[in-house]
């Protein structure tokens, strides 16, 4: 490039940038302050753009990403490479800001405003993966990391198959007296379990022959039970004699309980189809069995279909969902099953369209036992409670009586903690992350924590919060797996997607866990082993989270040294512990922490941890990764989670959970292109 062309380019860029800045600054706002407590009317349909081919089209995921990329290429590429090959992948908003301030060559970029920097950071954190991180973390929990453009489209909604849990819970709700899981165990076991993606089992949308066969056999068996049950005939079909077929009975069912099963009213084509089935079988009982079985195998039952909404601004890809669909969304999101009769009736009578009624309905639903069970499922998968390893240490390491009850006690403790802070006291995320309340009841945990079951607290200088409890710390062997401890924190609490090592070019011995050595601590061995740059890409994040918790042994006992044992359990060496790490949570704002209690304190104040908690709930609920298109929803929900940080309201976990059905985009469906 010649000098003159450089000048021209600079002038052109400056003009362009000036225009972009004006547009951006006036167009984007942080929505935090603008949302009402119940934002049923937010955004109004007029907020949404008229469509991608219309003037003034809204800024979707691609637009935001493109904006960030464009800003990067205009301002940063000359030093750090073009965007697609940048050396600054993953840089946070805060680190960019500090670099601009501290590095003289970058001082000229001080003119870039906060919004622009956030977009650059977002793009740098999302490129190439297809999973753009919607957050631009500043480190401070009070700063909402999600930008919201009020005309932005919602994230997409795909047609999802009911998960196995949702399917079974819905049947149990619809037929409480007749769907006895013991009687249907063979059929239930025939339904494939949902595959777990990252942490959650809710994203599996696959269907196999085993599904089809199981749905068929279960539906017909259940339908047979129902038709043979006098109470069902009386209350749900209202026709005493099923042997003789009757059109009025058919209509009564289709317009009555059939609707609840279907989660909406049948349209005329559907009635014709199912009436055809009913009519084609002369025997009354078999006609009813066939009808109910077919409905239970229909797409409207097995899938979350949302096809009845009202188009927004005449767009073919954006709808306000119908009241029936809204009731289903609420029910599946908060209770993990279809709507019950009460919620369904409220949808039918239009109560979901009234903001205050909507709010009180949500409060009732989220206070239900079903909702509690569903949120416990979320916590169970989020904290990997079901995946706590089976302790298998030798007797010299831990007595068999403690070992045998440790896992179940540790699982129960984690469940009790979330129960206590989510429902009993309606506490905050910080409570979860820093609590020293004693929940240990059984002999294993009280022994490990050194407390009595009636003690109010556990030693706060040893433990702080859920990440320091046994359920998070247990290994299967007597050797602590530092890498896996680190992985759990970074994946579950910081939402990092850590890829597995690239095995093709690595000396395989490097991939083995270091054996405890009398010569060197495990930390020292691991630091040496992961020192090569190719390892540090991930291990610079993983290792600190493992090292910082080294003062817990393989079953979570507090320790002050790393003891090395021979095969009989004799101590042959002891290594001092070094718990000092830079946790690498908020990039350049991080300070060194010394031990897990300090780390817990940092995590409790970190926007990244709070944002991750929010994103995990959305991921679990929607059955997909969050994207930048979810940023308005996340913005709203994040604010609910940290309410107490910015005003006098108390922060409540439950507020964040319920906010997912109150956030502005909840009632809209954006069609996948």
């Amino acid at each position, binding site marked *: 490039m010649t000098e003159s062309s450089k000048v021209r380019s600079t002038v052109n860029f400056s003009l362009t940038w000036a225009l972009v800045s004006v547009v951006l600054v006036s167009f984007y706002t942080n929505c935090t302050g603008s949302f009402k407590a119940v934002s049923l009317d937010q955004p109004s349909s007029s907020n949404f753009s008229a469509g991608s081919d219309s003037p003034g089209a809204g800024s979707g995921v691609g637009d935001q990403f493109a904006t960030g990329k464009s800003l990067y290429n205009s301002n940063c590429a000359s030093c750090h490479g073009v965007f697609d090959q940048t050396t600054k992948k993953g840089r946070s908003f805060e680190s960019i800001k500090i670099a601009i301030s501290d590095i003289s060559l970058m001082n000229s970029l001080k003119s870039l405003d906060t919004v622009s920097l956030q977009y650059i950071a977002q793009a740098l954190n999302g490129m190439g993966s297809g999973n753009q991180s919607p957050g631009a973390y500043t480190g401070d929990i009070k700063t909402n990391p999600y930008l919201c453009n009020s005309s932005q489209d919602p994230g997409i909604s*795909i*047609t999802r*198959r009911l998960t196995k849990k949702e399917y079974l819970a819905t049947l149990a709700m619809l037929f409480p007296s007749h769907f006895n899981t013991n009687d249907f165990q*063979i059929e239930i076991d*025939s339904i*494939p379990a*949902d595959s777990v993606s990252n942490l959650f089992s809710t994203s599996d949308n*696959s269907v*196999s*022959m*085993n599904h*089809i*066969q199981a749905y*068929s*056999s279960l539906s*017909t*068996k259940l339908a*047979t039970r129902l038709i043979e049950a006098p109470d069902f005939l009386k209350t749900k079909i209202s026709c005493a004699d099923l042997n003789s077929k009757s059109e009025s009975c058919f209509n009564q069912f289709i317009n009555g309980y059939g609707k609840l099963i279907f989660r909406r009213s049948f349209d005329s084509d559907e009635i014709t*189809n199912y009436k055809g*089935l009913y009519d*084609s*079988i*002369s*025997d009354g009982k*078999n006609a009813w*069995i*066939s009808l109910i079985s*077919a409905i239970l*195998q*229909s*797409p*409207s039952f097995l*899938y979350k*279909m*949302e*096809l009845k*909404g009202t188009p927004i601004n005449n767009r073919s890809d954006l*709808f306000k969902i119908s009241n029936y669909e809204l009731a289903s969304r609420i029910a599946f999101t908060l209770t993990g099953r279809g709507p019950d009769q009460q919620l369904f009736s409220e949808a039918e009578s239009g109560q979901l369209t009234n903001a205050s009624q909507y709010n009180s309905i949500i409060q009732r639903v989220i206070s239900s036992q079903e909702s509690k069970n569903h949120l416990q499922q979320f916590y169970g998968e989020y904290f990997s409670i079901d*995946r706590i*390893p*089976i302790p*298998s*240490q*030798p007797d010299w390491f831990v007595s068999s009586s403690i070992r045998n009850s440790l896992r179940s006690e540790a699982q129960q403790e984690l469940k009790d903690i979330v129960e206590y802070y989510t429902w009993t006291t309606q506490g905050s995320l910080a409570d979860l992350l820093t609590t020293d309340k004693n929940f240990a009841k059984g002999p294993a945990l009280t022994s490990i924590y050194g407390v009595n079951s009636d003690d109010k607290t556990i030693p706060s200088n040893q433990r702080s919060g859920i990440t320091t409890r046994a359920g998070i710390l247990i290994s*299967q*062997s007597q050797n602590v*797996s530092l890498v*896996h401890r680190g992985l759990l924190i970074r994946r579950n609490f910081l939402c990092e997607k850590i890829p597995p090592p690239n*095995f093709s*070019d690595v000396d*395989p*011995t*490097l*991939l*083995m*866990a270091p*054996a405890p050595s009398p010569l060197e601590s495990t930390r020292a061995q691991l630091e040496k082993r992961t020192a090569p740059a190719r390892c540090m890409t991930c291990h610079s994040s993983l290792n600190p989270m493992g090292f910082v918790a080294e003062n817990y042994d393989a079953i979570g006992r507090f320790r002050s040294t790393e003891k090395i044992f021979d*095969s009989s359990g004799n101590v042959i060496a002891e290594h001092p512990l070094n718990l000092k790490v830079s946790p690498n949570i908020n990039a350049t704002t991080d300070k060194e922490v010394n031990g897990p209690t300090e780390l817990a304190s940092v995590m409790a104040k970190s926007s990244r941890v709070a944002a991750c908690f929010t994103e995990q709930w959305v991921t679990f609920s929607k059955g997909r990764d969050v994207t930048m298109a979810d940023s308005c929803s996340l913005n709203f929900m994040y604010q609910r989670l940290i309410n107490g940080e910015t005003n006098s309201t108390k922060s409540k976990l439950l507020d964040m959970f319920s906010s997912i059905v109150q956030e502005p985009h909840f009632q809209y469906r954006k*069609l*996948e292109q």
Partner: protein
Amino acid sequence: MKNFNRRQFLKSSCGATIGLPILPSLLSQFLSEKAIAATPPPLRFVAIHNGHCQAVEQWLPNLSNINLNKRSENVSEYNLSQISGNLTPVLGSSMDSLRNKILLINRLDSTSGRPNHNAEFILSGGVKGDFTSTLDHVISQKLSGSAPLNLFIKSVFDEYNSGASHVSVLNGNYSQGDFNPSVVFQRLFSSSGGGSGSTGGGSNTGTTLSRRDLLIADRVYQDYLKLKNHSRISKNDQTRLNQHMELLYQVETKLRAADQSNSGSSGGGNTLTCNPTSPINNSPVKSGINSDYAVIIDQMFDVIELAIKCQKTQVATLMLHVYDYFAGNVGFISGISGSARLHEDIGHAGDENTRKMKLALNQFFAQKIARFLKNLDVLEDPTTGRTYLDNSLVLWANDQGALKDTNGHTTINVPVFLAGSAGGFLKTGRYLDYGTPYSGDLAKRAVGGNEYGQYIYGRPYNQLLITIAQAMGLQPSDYQGGSSGFGAYGDWTNDRYASVSNHKTEILPFIKG
């Protein structure tokens, strides 16, 4: 896109209105011995995977007292009957009575380093995403028009089972599998059940397959058809619903065949008493008892054996455990002690003690597989004298191999064990080495080359898959997806195997009978 004109079919076969009570089971349960004798027995393929890093020398014969017979520049063989003592450390004496029915193969390699705990490698040569479907699906589709029986052992402690068989991939997705042998048994052998394989027509478990099911399936299908074309269904959603409909259609096809068979329109059913005398009930998949792992493995093999003998399936896969850091403790196996996590403590074993435990684990699997093979090795075809095993091809393989003294994730020299000759297609009873012979001391070692620098690459593993495909009667056009070869080929294809001619078009040399 298939032209599903099933409404017409229903009208022609069932009439517009069908009177019930339900007809008795429309599927005949029995196949006639007479019919069997008149028809050549079908070929079957079973693939078994046990996972995790391997010490390959444990899988190979001790060559110190053997002079291999050189068949060509890079193929050597040895007759297994001439090996004194144990065939290999892993097999011990468990397969001694089957020596003339097995093939041990050395030096088949992945064409890339991608496979890493990817069980699908054994039926694709690669990793999900790099190919469309695994060989089990391709073979099963060709032989019977249905899906294979995909089974996996869920660790009794693994409450978080993934639901996927992992060995098997169809159209880019892991196939769902079964982990409960009693459920599979029930589906295959209930009084009215009896589909072929996991995709068979046994859409009802414990109830009666009937014309009623056919009518239900048809109406459900109509419902999907209407929704699928809705303007608010996205392309991806359409794909998902299409898949659901495709499966419904398969069920309906089976029901239709059963209905026609029962009504005599297709010439009546087959009748052979195949009534398992020992039902598999109450599999202890949730007992939480470590040793039940062994019980379930036996039951899984029993289900496959029965499915083969009763012609319920021609293709089956079995993954012996789910890859998971938290997989169960296998301390109940003789020779395994201390912390006994399947993956971390044994799979990645490096020192001498844990290598012994790795060997003990594989010996445990070998004994289970030997039991299965012996149960199959009973007369099936009096005309030829062949057993069920002879008419089958059983592959026991792994996605990971390793050279001596290493235990990491490496796809070089993966262990391959074959049993059965696929109806005489393969010449069994041999050890085959597909690499250039080592010289000097290295020639006498089970794994000739020791560390990376000394290993001489053999042939792409994919050539074994081509061999299996052809052994099962498939033509190249049946398994090639637009280009020659089968499965996934990685970056090393041209570097390491440039001198191996025709590996994408021909079966492994000297393997045929």
